[in-house]
């Protein structure tokens, strides 16, 4: 979308705030200007900057899907000043939105393939619109396995959707936690271990991973052991970002800008970067 001043946010209203975990909230955000709302289109993997005026703005992956034309959704983990201020807002509050920015998951290339969607903690957030898109067009894709991991059961994001994901055709949902509690009867294992145990086949398959750098690191090792080539593994890079426009140069890694050339990369693309993040 073209704007005179790309650093000037659109005004928007917090429609609804849902507690997803003790430190993650889902924000449903409605853009105030009907024209902007109508033309604001985006793809899974793209992100926006959300402003809490008086504190600042931060980038967040969109967890909703553009084609449904509903409010924008972001899942925000409270880690510091801006995320803290957003968590303190009540429905009805005015926030700012800039975007959408970045490239997106290559869903066209996923068509006809088996998909392993692996997310750890808040890193699962940008994977939700990938899952929604696949389930909304289920016949276009092969088998779908979703692996969602977190520190504890209450930290698993998007729990309200687990039943519908698990019930979808040709879809398996695997949940795992680092540490269980009294009521938890599921897996207690780190994500890389679960990947090894599930033994995904790389045949005509794509693995998509998002999560903390350390989880990605060890999951990649397991996927490679299973025979996945770098071109079959899709992930996202995170960087400090202040503009989303390729101007502030904060997210520069090698010759790329994560905000414009990413955040979605295949492992093949990442291994060709001169600087390794």
């Amino acid at each position: 979308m073209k704007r005179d001043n790309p650093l000037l946010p659109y005004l928007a209203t917090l429609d609804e705030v849902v507690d997803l975990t003790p430190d993650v909230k889902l924000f449903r955000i409605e853009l105030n200007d009907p024209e902007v709302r109508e033309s604001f289109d985006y793809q899974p993997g793209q992100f926006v900057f959300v402003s809490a005026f008086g504190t600042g703005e931060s980038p967040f992956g969109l967890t909703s899907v553009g084609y449904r034309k509903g409010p924008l959704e972001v899942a925000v983990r409270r880690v510091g000043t801006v995320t803290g201020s957003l968590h303190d807002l009540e429905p009805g509050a005015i926030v700012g939105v800039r975007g959408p920015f970045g490239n997106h998951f290559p869903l066209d290339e996923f068509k006809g393939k088996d998909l392993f969607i692996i997310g750890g903690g808040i890193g699962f957030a940008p994977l939700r619109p990938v899952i929604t898109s696949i389930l909304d067009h289920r016949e276009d894709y092969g088998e779908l396995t979703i692996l969602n991991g977190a520190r504890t059961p209450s930290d698993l994001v998007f729990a309200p959707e687990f039943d519908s994901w698990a019930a979808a055709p040709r879809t398996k949902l695997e949940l795992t936690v680092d540490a269980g509690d009294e009521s938890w009867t599921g897996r207690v294992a780190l994500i890389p271990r679960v990947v090894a145990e599930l033994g995904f086949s790389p045949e005509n398959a794509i693995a998509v991973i998002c999560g903390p750098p350390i989880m990605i690191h060890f999951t990649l090792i397991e996927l490679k052991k299973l025979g996945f080539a770098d071109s079959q593994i899709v992930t996202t890079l995170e960087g400090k970002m202040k503009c989303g426009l390729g101007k502030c140069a904060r997210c520069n890694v090698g010759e790329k800008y994560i905000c414009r050339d990413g955040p979605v990369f295949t492992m093949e693309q990442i291994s060709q970067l001169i600087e390794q993040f």
Partner: protein
Amino acid sequence: MSDYISRADLLSWLEKVSQSRDLVAPVKIEDLTLFQKVERVEDIVFDPGNTDLSPKEFFFPKSEVLFYVDRSDGRVELVPAEVEQETVIFGIRPCDAKGIAVLDLPYLEEPADALYRQHREKTTLVGLSCVSACPECFCTSMGTTPDDASNVDIMLTEVEEGFIVQVVTEKGKALLPEGLLSSKEVSPPAAPSVASVPSEGIAEKMHQVFDSPYWDRLADRCLHCNVCSYVCPTCYCFDVRDLRSGGRVERVRSWESCQSPGFTKIAGGYDPRAAKGPRLRQRFAHKLLYFVEKFGVTHCVGCGRCVRSCPVNIDIREVIQDVQGLGVKSEA
């Protein structure tokens, strides 16, 4: 025959210019020479040598309000800053003018930076050729020359008692009143000779030595004081924050440097460039490799300011020299 203006006519013209616009030129402030809004044209420094800070701050200020939040009448409105003031920068040297042309590449690339573009549109550049070279500069190795008029609107070259005038752009022409210039039989002095550095093929060499232990060794003495970025006419990284000022919220952008610890630190505490070596390498890789790959020119114009200002003598001329050498030695 050349277009010519005497020094006296030049000063009275500048005096007139300063009545309708901001006139910015090098002036002495204690022991520094800085581009500043000029109060009296007699204060303008014509001496050879470059200012201590580049004039980039008139396009990309150290700190600039992007917009403020208006909360009157129970409504929220964002009021973007607008650049209203017409400005003339007088006495800009070819390296700094080239520096602005280099800043244009990322900032005017679509989607263009709104405030930068407004500053650019409202500013006219009157350049001054260098008739002698500073000891630290190496402009001719970085794509410009002491008499390069291609990045200014009007170029002046000092000759006896006055200046040869080249009117380069329509914007420059519009600034000069009819009949101000005379014709004179003078030729410009020979351009001074400038120290050269082996910049030929530097991007390719930077690529080859990217993983060399050289960067850790070099960075060991860096204090990450950021001075190199702040004095540089082409460094353009920024930070954005909300500040409260006079009871209202302003979103402010300010200079940042890739040498700051935490420049790349992300949520969760992970910092891919936590060590000094990769941080200092980023400065040189951006200037001599990435920018060249993306825009086809180096992100250094050879003004020599970082050479002069670095407290521990990290010298980009030596880095270029070293990198060229490392590429051939197996020790790299």
